[in-house]
């Protein structure tokens, strides 16, 4: 079967034709670069996304700390991961890239801070 797919890797947004059979990736056309093929393969076998959100900060110059998963995670797990993110509360100071929750998707992705925040209570 052939499916139209918009690549989300970069803003170019290639409109690709992806050939597949059930969960087996066969090939791709109209992709500008090799990242498109990688994305199309993942999209057929098991779609993945980076999840971004915020967590509460105690004592920081920020009220909410922006966070992300340091790897793309399985698309079906997004809402489970968001639930776990809701539970996280951190105390300032936090440095950018600090791991806040390891292995959040049970597949090796960690929740990391995407900004630093200093402690303003000291």
């Amino acid at each position, binding site marked *: 079967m052939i499916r139209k797919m918009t690549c989300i890797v970069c803003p170019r947004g290639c409109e690709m034709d992806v050939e597949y059979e059930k969960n087996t990736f066969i090939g791709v056309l109209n992709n500008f670069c090799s990242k498109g093929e990688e994305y199309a393969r993942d999209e057929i076998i098991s779609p993945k996304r980076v999840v971004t*959100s915020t967590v509460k900060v105690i004592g920081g110059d920020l009220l909410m700390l922006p*966070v992300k998963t340091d790897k793309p995670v399985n698309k079906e797990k997004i809402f489970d991961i968001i639930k776990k993110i809701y539970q996280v509360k951190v105390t300032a100071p936090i440095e950018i890239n600090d791991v806040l929750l390891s292995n959040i998707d049970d597949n090796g992705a960690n929740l990391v801070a995407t900004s630093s925040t200093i402690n303003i209570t000291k």
Partner: protein
Amino acid sequence: MKLIDLIIIGGGPAGLAAACQAKENGINNILLLERENVLGGILKQCIHNGFGLQYFQKELTGPEYANEFIEKIHKLKIPYKVNTMVLSIQPNKTIITSSKEEGYVVYQAKSIILAMGCRERPRGAIRIPGTNPSGILTAGTAQKFVNIDGYIPGETCVILGSGDIGLIMARRLTLEGVKVKAVCEFQPYPGGLSRNIEQCLIDYNIPLMLSHTVVAIHGKKRVTGVTIAKVDEHFNIIENSKQEIACDTLLLSVGLIPENELTSQMGIKMDQVTSGAMVNQTLETSIKGVFACGNVLHVHDLVDYVTMEGNRAANYATTYLNNSKNLMKKRITVIADKGIRYVMPQYIDIGEKNEKITIYFRSKEIYREKNTIVKCQKKIISRHKNLRLMPAEMEKILVKTEDISGDTIYVGVDTND
């Protein structure tokens, strides 16, 4: 009055890039002015990923992207002032500022880079009839509430306009437990990038209703619902297509306007279509030594392109400060012709040296497999094949100054082939 070689107005992505680049070019007497309490501009609230692929060749979130430059500002020891509002700029480059810490301070700049960014079009700009309850926000305001302040603006939501911020907020609100019932787009095509349609709407089964608009808002104290309707190809409302959607929040993502009050007040010539200054290929406005870059000049699709333009503005300001200008012999006007909404730069100043010039443009509608052409005196001097031209995506075409004759060139879509 303090004398400064280069004053940059705005500490968002354009201003940050310009400041770093100017310093690296050897300009030491720089000052960066920012009205908010921290540097970074709108990137701070854009917590999603997808930034930096073009400029850094890696995927970053907004705060991470800003951090790359803020760290550099500190490392290069570039002077900056936050909580500082520029009240006015005079044509002689006198800048009047006000801040809580220092009060009223006046600077005299040798050159200025305008990098004030843009703001969102509000409800008033699109004149939706109905009541005026709470619960009507621009998408960016909602983004600030959720991502910076930690508030959810409502429980059920309709989004009008499919600009990128609206699409990003559709996903963000869905993840925060808000039911996003529909994204309505007046035009027959989406306003945002294709990748955002895919990863923000399709991933979460949020309906995108093209050729639809909100025709009434209901509710006294709080929004209780909106009436939406289909529009025909002339954008007239189709009466029998009206339907009411219950919701407590309406987000507007209906376009961005460059924030140019300072620019027009100082007498700089403005472009009615971009709402930004008219510039030549060195990003210089109609006042010598005043340059513009980023979303204050024209609204960009990607922050990466804003950064690149900030770097360019810094390079041209450096050339200006070093008096090493390519002397102007002739000014060429660049016109947006058939199928093209706007061009930037609006002028090309031909000097003694030949140059290759990149003209940026946006199309008026979607074209597939068409050539963009640049003509002067009925002769085609440049041609570029586009697989897909979309109003939502900025494109570019190259021209060589030695090919230009006459005093006007026209950028258009070749609809003959």
